[in-house]
């Protein structure tokens, strides 16, 4: 029973962090139709900035600088590179490949700087743990759950109550109609990219915090786990991304926690279990759990 509670809490924390990343994917996709392959390297950039700056600025200062810088880099990437090309939204596939090129450059540069090191981020939780009834949880995990919940709620509020959120939803609905109604697509897009960059930098902190050993050059690859999370929930639905992330986090934690009972599936199945779950969900609901079926007009 203790194991189960332990695993569930772990899964919840993991899912909460995936949600930060998945939400970024979804926001970018909604705003620009681009599948951002550079998301992992943006995440790595955020983590790296915290790691090098926390000695001088303190953790909070470093985090603030990292979040702002990553947001600025993501926004600049969209404004300077992606929006320069063909403005036709049908050209999103070309922009998707441009993000691959950007990812190659960013990852090469950051890997060169990080090398084989494990960077600590100087986060305030350290390796402290808290007893919650029968289970003990790492403080960083609890912080991940709390911070992610607050941030995600804030993002939903942005979507729901601000003019920008309205513009974003309108643009996701119908680009041309939105433009005719006076929505400035280029700004809406850029802000969406900024938001996604900020979320990725924040996620990097929790991905590198205890019990993870620290920030490595491969940390960015975890962003790939957010793909199934975003898809499970239905790519166009932010609440869906949240639900999908929790499902993915729980699946991964449960499969890893009960590894010994599942050894038929091979070692390390926990890492790929999210994908198996995703395929099954897509078979039953081809547009994800929360994605609505698109109306087809001829």
């Amino acid at each position, binding site marked *: 029973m203790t194991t189960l509670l332990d695993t569930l809490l772990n899964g919840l924390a993991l899912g909460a962090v995936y949600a930060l990343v998945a939400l970024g994917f979804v926001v970018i996709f909604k705003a620009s139709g681009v599948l951002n392959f550079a998301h992992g390297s943006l995440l790595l950039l955020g983590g790296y900035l915290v790691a090098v700056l926390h000695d001088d600025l303190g953790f909070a200062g470093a985090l603030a600088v990292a979040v702002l810088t990553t947001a600025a880099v993501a926004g600049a990437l969209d404004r300077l590179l992606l929006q320069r090309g063909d403005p036709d939204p049908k050209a999103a596939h070309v922009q998707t490949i441009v993000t691959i090129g950007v990812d190659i450059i960013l990852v090469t540069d950051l890997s060169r700087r990080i090398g084989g090191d494990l960077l600590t981020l100087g986060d305030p939780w350290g390796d402290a743990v808290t007893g919650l009834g029968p289970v003990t949880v790492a403080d960083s995990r609890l912080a991940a759950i709390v911070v992610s919940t607050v941030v995600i709620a804030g993002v939903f509020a942005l979507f729901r109550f601000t003019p920008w959120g309205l513009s974003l939803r309108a643009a996701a609905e119908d680009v041309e109609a939105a433009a005719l109604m006076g929505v400035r697509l280029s700004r809406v897009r850029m802000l969406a990219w900024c938001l996604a960059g900020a979320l990725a930098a924040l996620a990097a902190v929790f991905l590198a915090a205890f019990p993870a050993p620290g920030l490595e050059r491969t940390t960015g690859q975890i962003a790939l786990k957010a793909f199934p999370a975003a898809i499970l929930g239905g790519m166009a639905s932010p609440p869906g991304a949240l639900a999908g992330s929790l499902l993915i986090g729980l699946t991964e934690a449960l499969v890893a926690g009960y590894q010994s009972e599942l050894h038929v599936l091979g070692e390390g199945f926990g890492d790929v279990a999210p994908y198996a779950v995703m395929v099954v969900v897509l*078979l039953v609901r081809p547009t994800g759990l929360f994605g*609505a079926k698109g109306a087809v007009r001829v």
Partner: protein
Amino acid sequence: MSELVPKWGKLLLPALLLCALPFYLDAFWLRIGLFSIAAAIGAVGLGLLSGTAGQLSLGHAFFLAVGAYGYTWLAGDPGPALPPALAAVLAVLLAGAAGGLFSPVAGRVRGIYLGIATLALVFLGHHLLLTADSVTGGFNGRSVPPLTLGGFGFTADDPELTVLGVPFGAEERLWYLGLALFALTWFTARGLLRGRPGRALSAVRDSETAAAVMGVNVARYRSAAFVVSSMYAGLAGVLLALSFRRVVPDYFGLALSVDYLAMIVIGGLGSVAGATAGAFFVTALPLLMTRYADQLPLVAAPGTGGEGALGPTEAARYLYGAVIVVILLYAPDGLHGLSRRVRARLRPARSPDRPPSAPWPASAETSPATPARAKEHTP
């Protein structure tokens, strides 16, 4: 019809040139060429699927792996140790069957969802390759049995062969095999694209409803595109396995799938020649850059320079990433579109071809958002 003769003539010259290359290039260049040819075969397959049929696939690496490992297992020991030529054919069919098995998903799931669903194939496949050691050799992979065709081996000395004073080793022999397979790919794919199936697939891409109204069996064509594309991937996998002489699971990861996607977009979607150009670009460029990067300014030779010095491998990666970005910024329709525009400019008398349509319904996928929701907040 009068264009038919010059078209054949245009193909003849490059074909002769490619056949003459082994007499002038050493094994290093031939190996790069071989990898590019194999990549081109795979890219043509993916171009058919994603470019023409509009089905985004990130799972191409999985089908390459099925071809490569299928051949290795079928022709090798442990395994049934079939004659290698038969094993190669069966491996291609196996890859097609794998594509067919995935068609329940491919038939139902669209656009970006399909892309990520196929991403799952890569991860699950990689896990399978690592776990099923008895078939795949686990993490360290297996060595690939060489291909023999009627007593003629595609190896260094079986039998010894010298043509016009040039000793024919494994690379030279595989080069001609690769060319033959590529010619097969080129003509079958162009035939498919220009014939009834190609038109049906384009119709499905542009509008499934309209295609169905015109009498196209949408579900059948969607899964057929998947099967055919997987077979090309399987063929590419066999050729890659033969050129590498060893297959390891880590090669067939997500990065490979993404590379193939980059190939078809850089080449220009929806054309066989474009996919081929993109494949050469993506495969050969990093290899060449790594080889010659130490001659660039500011780049330290390997082993020299302290921590943080810019090594040739990294310089090559930077350049490669930058080239992808620059090409797509200035030629969003890829190398194929670029060459078409250059030709149109060189020959001002002829009117330029019509602009290419943009396939792959990425933008169409933004619309499945609920139609009713935005209205709650209409100002």
